[in-house]
């Protein structure tokens, strides 16, 4: 067991290294660099950047060096816990991300909680009462949820909110709280803005989860161990929840690996449409501006979280599934 964990850990480190190389290459891939997009931005707004200034900027950020030197300098910084300066914001990357991280996590966790709280009971019901009216309704709504892109749903709701309630329902705060310091009133304002993005973000996930749970559970319901459990005189809900539902939940443990990066990035497009101050749109902007420090840090963070999440879900599977835990031990 310990040898297994050690091997997994070594592989995880290797994977993260590969992620740093890949993310660096991908960010460097488009022609030009931050300075060219900076110049373009300045001239678009009627400004002017002198050649000397350009050279100075390039030197300052090390952009005049060859690629591998830039990579090594970046890695050295990262390994020392520094992530550089977000070029566009002229502030340390950790601060820029940190500002948005908490709000992103609040929105994402709310969406995940809503998704699971809705999807599990509906999925179980749909499977246990297969082909009932309720199952058909859940299936119908579920397919709509799967088919409609979340940003479309967001746009429609924004439009409806604007047209019929004359209210802008985007964002996470009302205008007067957006820049205000944290107070109870601001928290309450956040709580009032939270349901809409939570529902939009959770809808597609819920639909998907319902389908998966229904399919997993249908696979299990006819198994002999369910019939024997029933034949032992247990009540029906106990039979269902203790045995097939428990087995049907196992595959979900492996989805934790994807949940973790989702929690810190959130959904990029929906956040953009709804104007949510989360990490997702930040990444998009950084990529457009070719801000390699900010984009690199976010991509690296997501990569590391994916690896950590996968590692955690493997541990979780070991813990909950004796078939995996005791494999090879008779």
């Amino acid at each position, binding site marked *: 067991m310990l040898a297994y964990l050690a091997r997994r850990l070594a592989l995880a480190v290797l994977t993260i290294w590969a992620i740093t190389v890949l993310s660096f290459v991908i960010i460097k891939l488009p022609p030009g660099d931050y300075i060219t997009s900076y110049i373009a931005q300045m001239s678009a707004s009627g400004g002017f950047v002198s050649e000397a200034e350009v050279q100075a900027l390039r030197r300052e950020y090390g952009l005049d060096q060859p690629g591998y030197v830039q990579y090594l300098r970046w890695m050295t910084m990262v390994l020392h816990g520094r992530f550089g300066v977000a070029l566009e914001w002229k502030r340390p990357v950790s601060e820029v991300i940190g500002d948005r991280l908490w709000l992103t996590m609040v929105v994402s966790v709310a969406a995940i909680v809503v998704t699971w709280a809705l999807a599990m009971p509906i999925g179980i019901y749909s499977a246990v009462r297969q082909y009932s009216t309720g199952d058909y309704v859940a299936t119908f709504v579920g397919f709509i949820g799967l088919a409609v892109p979340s940003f479309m749903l967001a746009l429609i709701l924004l439009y409806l909110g604007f047209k019929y309630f004359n209210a802008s329902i985007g964002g996470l705060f009302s205008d007067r709280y957006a820049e205000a310091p944290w107070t109870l009133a601001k928290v309450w304002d956040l709580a009032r803005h939270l349901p809409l993005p939570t529902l939009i973000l959770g809808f597609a996930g819920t639909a998907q989860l319902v389908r998966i749970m229904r399919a997993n559970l249908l696979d299990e319901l006819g198994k002999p161990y369910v019939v024997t459990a029933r034949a032992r005189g247990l009540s029906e809900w106990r039979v269902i929840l203790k045995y097939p539902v428990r087995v049907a939940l196992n595959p979900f443990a492996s989805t934790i690996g994807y949940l973790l990066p989702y929690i810190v990035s959130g959904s990029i497009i929906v956040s953009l449409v709804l104007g949510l101050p989360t990490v997702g749109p930040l990444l998009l902007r950084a990529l457009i501006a070719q801000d390699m420090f900010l984009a690199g840090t976010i991509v690296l963070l997501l990569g590391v979280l994916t690896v950590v999440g996968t590692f955690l879900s493997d541990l979780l599977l070991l813990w909950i599934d*004796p078939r995996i835990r*005791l494999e090879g031990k008779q």
Partner: protein
Amino acid sequence: MPTDGRPILEVRELRTYFFPEEGTVKAVDGASFEVFPGRTLGIVGESGCGKSVTAKSILRIVERPGRIVGGAIHLRREGGTDPAATIDLATLDPAGLEIRHIRGGDIALVFQEPMTSFSPVHSIGNQMVEMIRVHTRLDKAAARERAVEMLRLVGIPRPDRRIDEYAFQLSGGLRQRAMIALALSCHPRILIADEPTTALDVTTQAQILDLLRHLQAQERMAVVLITHNLGVVAEMCDEVVVMYLGRVVERGPVDAIFHAPKHPYTRALLRSIPSIRASVRTKLPTIAGSIPHPYNRPPGCPFHPRCPDVIRGVCDRSEPGPRPVGPGQTASCFLYEESP
């Protein structure tokens, strides 16, 4: 015959149909038999003849879209001397408290595949303790003690350690022993064993059958043994019910069934057992044709298209009812019509 001559379980004209979208499947279509205390009833027939559905019907655990559409299942109440003190299981609410007390408490079930009959993610002890606590007032520690005792009773070595293992950690034979221990842990009056040895190798089969016989004598249970293995029937059973396409075609004492089979189907079944006395390189006789598709039941006697003794114009017109053909033996066949 039985000690007081009264059956502990009496199945009358049981009909269990399935209603999928494609039509009706008459899985059990008028099955009648009795189960006597301390004795073993064998239910035999080919795959798909309704043996297992009969067992599930008795426990009221037939899955949708199946349901009992007719007949009665009378279970004698415990310690009842009054012959009228029976309960009709067919009329109970399948989710109700009454039938749940009977499941596992009065009537227990052992399945063919012990591997898949245990939960893959719960230990054997977990499932045993759960069942004991559902049917008794024992606390956790006492229930565990009884579970260990039951595992020892069925011959599992080091039961105090095996109890915390999972089904996939045991060998096939031990697994089926554990399944039997689980089924018997609340001392049921009737044990229904649905193909209990089919998935096991021959040596283990013999051991499990010995164990069942031994436990039956010790617990004074009635056993309903469902199988397609006529060798097992000959070895284990007192009475035999032969089923074909959901109907009981012949029933009687085991000796009569084996030595004086009356129904053409029973005869054909017995002919298809390989015999050690047969000359070498002879082809084993088989039953002509195959089992009809469940949506395409033949009219009249369900066996007539495959029957060597078919009476044209009779067997394909109407269905024969059970007729007495010997002491305690009946056959549903027009060959034994008294006034043809």
